[in-house]
Structure formats: structure tokens, C-alpha cells
């Protein structure tokens, strides 16, 4: 319990370190120059938005599979993960379109990666509006979980389909001349630290939301016991 909190709170140190490293320590890329530094924010944000999606899907499956109610609050946990993930997804889209504007000259052109992140965003929006529409139903957690599972199962089809319909400009290419992702040692370390920092930030926020939800539930329970 103690160790978990120490790890989560280390985000206060690792995140500024990652920011300073991204701007001052990592060398600029060959073509994109200084603008390539947006990579150290865009890639971790995209990673976290997919991670949050997978985490909420797995939590939903566990919530439905767990018939004896061994774990409580898994559906709320999935909800917090999804709502945090949605903020990260929006930030990914914003940083991504800035990068696109710098390197391709347009903000948006339905590139496969852009398409799949928009689909994730649509699923988040649909899930959150379903949750809010079910506000006063007992079945809220289970219906939300069922929807998230359906959405998560459909997503691989997209990842499979989309790149075959549209050609890709964006994935890894144009950081360097030879269109392959080539990062030297310092860039790679910086990217790793940034990914770690953003993952910690996500876990920390979800952790706080979970603790607030637990507090809410206990307060409500004691209130109902008193009256």
C-alpha cells in the first residue's frame, strides 16, 4: 500500500525530468528539427490513450466474469480509466494535428493512425454518454461493461481494415530521410522516460478518482445506515 503510493507520487519528479530532457537533452531530428520534440509528448499520449482503453476493457470483462462479487467497484474503475483516457485521447489528437501541420502542411487528412484515434475517441464518447444516460439504473455497471467489451472486440477489425483502405503517410515515416524510425540513444532514452512519466500520470489520476469513488460510497453507506 505504501509502496504503491510512493511509486505513483514519483510522477512529481519524473514528469518534470521528462519535460526538461525532451527540450534540452535530446538532440533535434534530422528533417523536422526542433519541432520533432513534440514527439516526446505525442507518442506517450497516444500510448496512454490506447492503454486506458485496453485497461477499461479488461476491467469490464473481469467485472462481468466475476459472479461471486469478489472484487467491488471494477465498473467504476473502468469508467475512471475511460474518462481519463478520453482526455488523453483529445490531447493526442491536438498534438498530432500540430505535428501534422508542421510536417505535412495540413492539420487533418484521415491518415490510418488519425482514423483509428478518432474511432477510439468516438467509442469513449459513446461509452461516457451511455454511462450518463444510465445514471439512476442499478444495472449501470453491467450495461456499460457490456458496451465496452463489444467496442473493444470491434476495434481490432478497424486496426486491421483501415490501413488497407487508406495509404499511410504518417506512422513512423518522416522523422528522418530514409522513412524509417531512427532514433539515436538519447532520443530513445528520452522517449522511454516520457512514456513512463505519462503512464504514471495516468495511473495516478485514476488512483485518485478511485479513492474518491470509494469515499463517496462509504459516506453514502454510513448515511443510509444512520437514517
Amino acid at each position: 500500500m505504501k509502496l504503491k503510493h510512493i511509486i505513483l507520487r514519483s510522477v512529481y519528479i519524473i514528469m518534470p525530468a521528462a519535460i526538461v530532457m525532451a527540450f534540452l537533452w535530446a538532440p533535434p531530428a534530422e528533417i523536422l528539427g526542433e519541432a520533432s520534440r513534440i514527439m516526446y509528448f505525442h507518442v506517450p499520449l497516444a500510448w496512454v490513450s490506447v492503454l486506458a482503453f485496453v485497461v477499461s476493457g479488461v476491467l469490464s470483462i473481469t467485472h462481468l466474469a466475476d459472479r461471486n462479487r469478489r472484487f467491488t467497484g471494477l465498473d467504476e474503475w473502468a469508467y475512471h480509466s475511460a474518462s481519463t483516457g478520453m482526455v488523453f485521447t483529445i490531447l493526442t489528437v491536438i498534438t498530432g494535428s500540430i505535428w501534422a501541420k508542421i510536417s505535412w502542411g495540413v492539420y487533418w487528412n484521415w491518415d490510418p493512425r488519425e482514423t483509428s484515434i478518432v474511432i477510439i475517441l468516438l467509442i469513449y464518447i459513446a461509452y461516457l454518454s451511455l454511462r450518463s444516460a444510465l445514471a439512476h439504473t442499478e444495472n449501470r455497471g453491467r450495461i456499460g461493461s457490456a458496451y465496452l467489451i463489444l467496442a473493444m472486440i470491434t476495434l481490432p477489425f478497424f486496426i486491421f481494415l483501415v490501413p488497407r483502405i487508406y495509404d499511410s503517410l504518417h506512422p513512423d515515416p518522416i522523422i528522418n530521410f530514409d522513412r524509417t524510425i531512427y532514433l539515436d540513444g538519447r532520443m530513445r532514452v528520452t522517449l522511454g522516460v516520457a512514456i513512463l512519466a505519462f503512464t504514471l500520470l495516468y495511473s495516478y489520476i485514476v488512483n485518485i478518482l478511485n479513492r474518491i469513488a470509494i469515499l463517496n460510497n462509504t459516506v453514502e453507506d454510513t448515511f443510509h445506515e444512520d437514517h
Partner: protein
Amino acid sequence: MRIIKTIIVAMSICLIPMMMSTGLHFFMARAQTGAVVSSGENLKITVTPVRKDEGAVPSAVLYRVLGVVLIIWAGLAAYLFIIDRRVARIEKEIHLTE
């Protein structure tokens, strides 16, 4: 009932590779004939390798951007820290009363 379910699950598991293979086949064929529109065609890479020469100039801008990002992070960190402390306090209170 159980049996029907298992059959359905087994069937769906069999369906996945079939789908994958048909989809793959279809889109491979499509990619070769080029029948499907590709938006990438009219948007060739427009990278301008101007930046390479200006190695020294952008450092002022760089520091400014770094400052802005750090300020944003400081605000977020302060907000999270305050909430974390408040939650911890309430947790302790509830724990004491129980």
C-alpha cells in the same frame, strides 16, 4: 443451454481466422488493383528541410516553449497534489470514525 453456448463460442472462434483471411485477401487484391481510393495519393510529403540550417536560431523559442510546458505541468501538479492531500485526510478521518 450450456452446450448451445459452447457451440456458439466455438463457432465464433472459428469465424475469426476466416474473417481475417477473407479480409486480408480482399484488401490485398484491392491494394494491387488500386480500386479503392487512397487519400495519400494527392498529399505527398511536404517536408521542408529549411530548419536544418537554422540550428542556432530556435533556441530562444525553445526555452519559451519549455517554460510554458513547465508552467502547465506545475499547475496540474499543484491541483493533483492538493486533491491527493485532501483525499488522504478524508480517508484518515473516515478510518478513525469506523
